[in-house]
């Protein structure tokens, strides 16, 4: 029987270590191997979610809204107003779904992160590998959303194509800090419920997705402007309606990049502290 021949004699030069992004791609591949068995189901829900929301809220509720005049919406139908906002909000939801429990599960339940940490991969590589997978999922879901929304006739400008990377960036502005948060949870996952209930749901409802932020009381508006979701919603909507201007667009993008980058730094640190103790 041939047994694994381990080199017992010759020391070798350092093998198996590569550039930062090559190492991250190795971690990314592990998520891909896992995704191979679940991708079909995920596509169904990626299609179903925009169909349900645009059908019920955009068309159903929208018919009522439109009867009361659309001046507050910028003189477009509610469906056209809502769809690009939902695209950004859906990206946030995808980011939350891919960041919180998958990361917590990898470090706490299955300990697959610890397995990866025993190999040449550094904690930062493991973090970035997961972000690559999150980016892929965000891109998939956003493209599907765009197709569904076009079929609903909810697009006014070809610029809407540029809303896809904006929505992905919006998702990443949530994914990076949430990865950092999830990997740091040592005892249990109780804090996740707090984030869902008091973070994600209010953001989803009050960041300009379903109605303009101008409808909010004046004192609460600045709060909406601080959240990455409002910037994503505002820019996706401007692109979809064809009303975007360069200065505004760059401002939104700069803000989203700043939040994502801050999360990147925090995540790098959080992963190291958790996996290299």
């Amino acid at each position, binding site marked *: 029987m041939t047994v694994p021949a*381990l080199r017992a004699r010759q020391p070798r030069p350092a093998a198996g270590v590569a550039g930062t992004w090559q190492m991250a791609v*190795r971690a990314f591949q592990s998520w891909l191997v896992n995704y191979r068995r679940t991708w079909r189901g995920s596509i169904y829900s990626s299609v179903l979610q925009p169909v349900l929301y645009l059908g019920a809220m955009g068309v159903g509720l929208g018919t009522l809204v439109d009867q009361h005049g659309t001046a507050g919406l910028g003189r477009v139908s509610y469906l056209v107003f809502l769809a690009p906002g939902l695209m950004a909000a859906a990206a946030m939801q995808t980011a939350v779904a891919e960041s919180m429990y998958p990361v917590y599960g990898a470090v706490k339940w299955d300990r697959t992160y610890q397995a990866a940490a025993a190999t040449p991969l*550094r904690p930062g590589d493991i973090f970035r590998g997961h972000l690559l997978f999150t980016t892929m999922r965000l891109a998939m879901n956003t493209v599907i959303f765009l197709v569904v929304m076009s079929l609903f006739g909810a697009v006014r400008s070809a610029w809407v194509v540029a809303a896809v990377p904006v929505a992905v960036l919006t998702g990443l502005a949530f994914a990076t800090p949430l990865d950092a948060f999830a990997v740091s949870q040592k005892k249990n996952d109780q804090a996740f419920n707090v984030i869902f209930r008091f973070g994600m749901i209010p953001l989803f409802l009050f960041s300009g997705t379903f109605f303009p932020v101008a409808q909010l009381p004046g004192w609460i508006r600045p709060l909406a402007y601080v959240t990455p979701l409002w910037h994503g919603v505002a820019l996706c909507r401007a692109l979809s309606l064809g009303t975007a201007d360069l200065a505004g667009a760059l401002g939104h993008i700069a803000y989203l990049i700043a939040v994502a980058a801050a999360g990147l730094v925090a995540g790098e640190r959080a992963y190291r502290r958790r996996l290299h103790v």
Partner: protein
Amino acid sequence: MRLPRARYLWGARLHCQIILTAGLFVSELSDPLGKVTHVPDPDVLIRARGLTKRFGQFTAVDGIDFELRRGEAFGFLGPNGAGKSSTMRMIGCVSPPSGGELTILGLNPVADGAAIRARLGVVPQEDTLDVELTVRENLLVYGRYFGLPRPVIAERTTRLLDFVQLSERAGDQVEPLSGGMKRRLTIARSLINEPEILILDEPTTGLDPQARHVVWDRLFRLKQQGVTLILTTHYMDEAEQLCDRLVVMDGGKIAAEGSPRELIETYSSREVLELRFNTFEHDQAAEKLTAVPAERIEVLADRVLLYVADGDAAMASVRGLALEPLTSLVRRSTLEDVFLRLTGRRLEDG
């Protein structure tokens, strides 16, 4: 005046350079790792001096010294909480030391962690398999972490699964596999990069006796092939079977070092007479037994151990004292006795 001096200096510099270059060349020849390191002996794979690990106020590893040599099976024997796992994690380059020196394969684990880990195999104490994937997929993912090409992984997977007797389960999901099978898969996984050192942290803890023996058999085969093993255990039989050399660890410190036989010869007697008495006469009997000529007497909660050269002779003198134990057993000394002698506690007491 100036010109000749400058030329002289230039000549001297050239001369120095030749000497330096020659010196570097010689040191490169003498050092197979290709750079000048502090390890004089290339067969010393791991060298620790005063190695320390602290977590806040708690000192888990308290200044230990050891060397791991190429081709040997080196063990850390000690109860739970002795600092064995912390030591293994430092060697595995996933835990930066708090103090002391640690050199692994001639490299520094903090600066060159990734390069060192590329040459190690790790079997962690708790399974870290991806239970949703198949057996083969687990090896694929792990092999990719090392940057191995897929054909290489496929070829090694076939060989390794054969070695750990899991070939028939290659396509099965990991979740329903037994504990012993998961352990064997973890061992196969740790060998995917053909490591120079295999680190095993309590490789058979939590397994039933039969599964333990299968794992031991596989590890023994690796050892016979000359694989360098470093393992922790709180099972003295595991240490005796697998380790060429071991250290007894307790409270973060190394209490003794040697081969299993050396340790037993140094710290214990040839034979042990184990006596068990009725609970109510246990203490009384223990007191009377001091009259028996023994190297050492150890009174445990449920037994009395007499460390003697000849167990049967000692039993005769026990009978001579008109003591009739419920059970008596003469056995050879084990590492358990060494541990008891060194720490005053039993291994499983933790």
